[in-house]
């Protein structure tokens, strides 16, 4: 007997495989960053759903931490892709904007 958490886990795993394909085969770097960001969101959902599936919803703390780390990581990669550096880039930003 499969419950709703098992169904959601299967759907998330299938979708994570698709996202992994895009992150490997993406022609530009932005495709890869988009796929990695989407993969992180699906990982958050998978942690939350798996906590309910195994009857231990305490995994939600890990999901919270992972959501914040995913956002910080995406912004950091975007800044690195745009400026080539992670340090302060005020003059370059004014030049672009």
């Amino acid at each position, binding site marked *: 007997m499969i419950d*709703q958490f098992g*169904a*959601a886990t299967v759907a998330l795993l299938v979708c994570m495989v698709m996202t992994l394909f895009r992150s490997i085969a993406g022609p530009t770097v932005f495709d890869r960053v988009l796929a990695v*960001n*989407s993969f992180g969101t699906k990982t958050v959902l998978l942690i939350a759903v798996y906590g309910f599936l195994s009857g231990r919803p305490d995994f939600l703390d890990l999901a919270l931490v992972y959501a914040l780390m995913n956002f910080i990581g995406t912004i950091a990669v975007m800044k690195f892709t745009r400026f080539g550096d992670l340090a302060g880039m005020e003059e370059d930003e004014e030049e672009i904007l």
Partner: protein
Amino acid sequence: MNGALVAEVLSWTFIVAGSVFVLIGGIGLIRLPDFYTRIHAAGITDTMGAWLILIGLMFSAGWTLITVKLVMLLFFLAATSPLASHALAKAAFLRGLEPMLGRGLEIEDDHD
């Protein structure tokens, strides 16, 4: 008993709907032809799929501390996912990535 049954049915409905949206987003992430169109697919997964799955989990958890954590998770995802997508699209556009334009979609031809 009746309330538990209603919560179970609502949990099934929301989680299965969220799974369908997540699958649609994954298929779109593979099939769509362009980076700017693939953002749409990732956006479906990040907003609609995540929200529906988390709301379904809330119906399954009931009024406990778990629901509070789920609300916090929902808030973080709702705040950060559109921001990340926006930063991604802006970075790609400023970097000079051209959107794919189909026949009849060229903006300049409409004004000539």
